[in-house]
């Protein structure tokens, strides 16, 4: 089914509900929907199994229009349907969609605290991003809010009084913990060794990048988006650059696109090797951490020779690439790749055959295909459960049409399968890099790029090592973007991890947390999933909703 047919199908599904449909781009369909019909529209799409809710973007249309536009992006392979709902700036209300899409709960919480739109039917509306002491009633992403004053007024951020857990035995895995490279606060209610309740409070790494991006020029934003996350910095920069080039309708030259894909594959290798070590360390297998990080130095050396820096290698500029793959570097890369391939094969053997490792990885956090699809997870965790969803193959951008990537799938859906999928993806990336090096197109490295970008809006989807990265960019003709929305892959996997943590052994929770390769600095969300009863229920789609609905207010 090509994008055209998919959009036609979506249009027919939404014919009864929408007030007007437009086609701003070949693969996008916009449908204006009144707030009252939103749930009906979403159920119509979800009923026909048309795609998953990728994210929800709020856009402040400014003081004169006195309106906020809320966009619900539903993606199916390479087609994107956006449901546009306009609500008045003060006191706008939108119905909650978390009964249809479980992840909507998080996106709506972000909408509430950033724009002040009230969402009816959502149980827990406490802060997702902002610190505990943030002054009430100030919404950072509204254009006229004085965020500096609000930040200054933020008092000490202490959770409410002690003993809020009663006599339940709560193990805090707080911002400073050997299991977490980055700050996040988890609380596991534990009975003996079994976890009966799990809550997560993130927001420790929220820096307010989306607001800062609105008053910096496009080139300055490039360096800001690279530092959203240190491990997948190239993915963020690449997604941002793809979006801006789509807005300006100036594609980068083919050689630049190929080099970008090459650096993206190198980043995938270094990110997966890093994850392999950290996940094994969480399960207590320190030797694998030492070995995989020793071999990761090979990729870091290649990246350093190619782009000059080990981490945050900023290979992209608007309209092209900074560095060239010269005849001198290519053989160095090939030699490094041969060594890496041999090591990756060894790790594949370790991950699939080492008995002591498998005793801690097999059968942990098993996810069925339907469960993964219904929870709308993303990335290798999803592919390990058998759902074939990968933006590089579904909606190829840049040079992925020229150098296609084959998808790696597994059906077991447990921890061991995720290890296997990521190591196989490493081998796949090595193969793609060799193909790129052989067929590197000639041509210039970059194109002249105007300072001012014509008004418009676009969506740029990119497959980061952790899953689909979603950028929504809106320009207003000046050299500063009107709105930059970043939705990172880890947020869609949080509900899954917490529902799987409830009922697992305490010792299995850190490897489970590591199995989705969380990148807190990417997303910073809070979810409360608390199932006191701890009874084993047969898993169906409405479980996450009932589960998500039964949170306790903190």
């Amino acid at each position: 089914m090509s994008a055209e047919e998919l959009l036609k199908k979506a249009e027919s599904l939404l014919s009864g509900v929408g007030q007007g449909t437009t086609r701003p781009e070949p693969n996008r369909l916009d449908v204006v929907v009144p707030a009252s019909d939103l749930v009906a529209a979403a159920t119509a799409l979800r009923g026909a199994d048309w795609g998953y809710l990728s994210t929800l973007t709020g856009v402040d249309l400014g003081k004169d229009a006195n309106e906020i536009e809320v966009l619900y992006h539903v993606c199916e392979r390479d087609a994107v349907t956006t449901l546009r709902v306009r609500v008045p700036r003060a006191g706008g209300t939108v119905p909650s969609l978390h009964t249809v899409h479980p992840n909507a709960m998080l996106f709506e919480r972000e909408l509430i605290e950033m724009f002040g739109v009230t969402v009816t039917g959502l149980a827990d509306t406490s802060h997702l991003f902002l610190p505990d002491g943030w002054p009430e009633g100030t919404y950072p992403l509204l254009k006229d809010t004085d965020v500096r004053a609000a930040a200054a007024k933020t008092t000490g951020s202490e959770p409410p009084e002690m003993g809020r857990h009663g006599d339940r035995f709560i193990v805090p895995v707080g911002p400073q913990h050997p299991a977490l490279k980055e700050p996040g606060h988890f609380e596991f209610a534990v009975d003996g060794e079994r976890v009966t309740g799990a809550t997560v409070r993130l927001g420790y790494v929220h820096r307010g990048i989306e607001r800062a991006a609105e008053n910096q020029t496009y080139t300055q934003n490039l360096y800001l988006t690279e530092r959203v996350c240190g491990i997948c910095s190239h993915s963020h920069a690449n997604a941002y650059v793809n979006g801006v080039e789509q807005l300006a309708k100036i594609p980068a030259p083919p050689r630049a696109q190929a080099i970008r894909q090459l650096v993206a594959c190198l980043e995938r290798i270094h990110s997966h090797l890093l994850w392999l070590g950290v996940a094994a360390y969480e399960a207590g297998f320190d030797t694998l951490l030492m070995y995989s990080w020793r071999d990761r130095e090979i990729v870091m050396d290649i990246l350093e020779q190619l782009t000059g820096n080990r981490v945050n290698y900023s290979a992209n500029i608007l309209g092209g690439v900074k560095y060239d793959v010269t005849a001198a570097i290519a053989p160095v890369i090939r030699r490094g790749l041969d060594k890496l391939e041999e090591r990756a094969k060894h790790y594949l053997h370790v991950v699939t055959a080492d008995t002591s490792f498998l005793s801690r990885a097999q059968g942990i956090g098993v996810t069925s295909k339907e469960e993964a699809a219904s929870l709308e997870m993303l990335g290798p965790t999803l592919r390990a459960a058998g759902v074939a969803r990968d933006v590089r193959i579904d909606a190829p951008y840049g040079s992925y049409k020229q150098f296609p990537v084959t998808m790696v799938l597994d059906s077991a859906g447990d921890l061991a399968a995720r290890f296997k999928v990521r190591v196989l993806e490493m081998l796949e990336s090595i193969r793609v890099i060799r193909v790129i090096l052989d067929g590197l197109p000639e041509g210039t490295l970059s194109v002249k790029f105007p300072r001012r970008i014509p008004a418009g809006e676009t969506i740029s989807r990119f497959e980061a090592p952790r899953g689909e990265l979603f950028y929504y960019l809106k320009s207003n003709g000046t050299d500063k973007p009107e709105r930059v929305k970043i939705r990172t892959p880890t947020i869609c996997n949080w509900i899954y991890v917490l529902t799987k943590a409830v009922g697992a052994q305490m010792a299995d929770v850190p490897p489970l947390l590591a199995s989705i390769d969380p990148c807190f600095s990417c997303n910073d969300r809070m979810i409360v999933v608390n199932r006191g009863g701890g009874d084993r229920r047969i898993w169906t789609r409405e479980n996450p909703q009932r589960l998500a609905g039964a949170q306790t207010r903190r």
Partner: protein
Amino acid sequence: MRALINLLFFPGGLFLILLALAYEWADRKLLARFENRIGPRWFQTVADIVKLLVKEEITPATSHPILFGVLPVVAMTGALTAALYVPLLGMRPALSFNGDLIVTLYLLSLLTMAVGMAGWNSTSRFTMMGATRALTQLFSYEAPFMLALLGPAVVAQSWQINQIVANNRGVWLLLTQPFGFAVALIGLMGKLEMPPFDAPKAKTEIVAGALTEYSGRGLGLFHLGKGIELVVGLTLIAALYMGGIANPVEFFGKTLLLLVVLTSLHAILTRLRIDQTVGLWWRYGALVVLLQWLALIVWKGVTA
């Protein structure tokens, strides 16, 4: 006067602390080499202990101050006393009497008890879980470990270490009772909480287990106690199972060989969950040792 010297310097206090630090350094260096790292310098463990001794000790508000201070002292004392009755480096133990094998083992368990008590003493959730896990693991490996060590004792019809060693001179009980040796070795790993049995102090789950709240002196004394326990355990197994005491150098070589086996197991295995370790002891540890005893009796019956 000789007894005082025994107690204070030679096989007792100072010599034993240095020996424990040497063994601990060997263990850390070996593990680092397995992970192809360079590993710590030779005086590293001494520097660690001295630094811990001179560091400020914080007594957490929610724990009983006296108990908080006394427990590390009791733990190290248990380990030190246990070392008196064990032939360190193949030399004659300070004192030997009938039944000193059992006394040594109980004194070593005293150390784990002290760690457990220390865990329950403060309200931090990590120490509570660490203490529960430590004691669960203690109860699960203690009995099979003792059974395994009693194997050679029964063959030599006595419970006195140097008599057992004398009777079994020459014959390597490792060959005649392989299962007993294996269970004893794995039991020693369980006692020392070396990975894969380090669930009680699992770094990524409960930070440092029962010792999370300890800083400075308390931590140093617990650390030393663990080191001495390593020395005593290695010496015991080497004496009973590997053909007794010939001369100090050869005996030291045997204990180092055992240490290499322990550290290599440490490097290649993943940490087991606490229910897996207990399961391991229930299903395999205890039964294997009992079956081996049965074989001993049948073999004794046949030859006698």
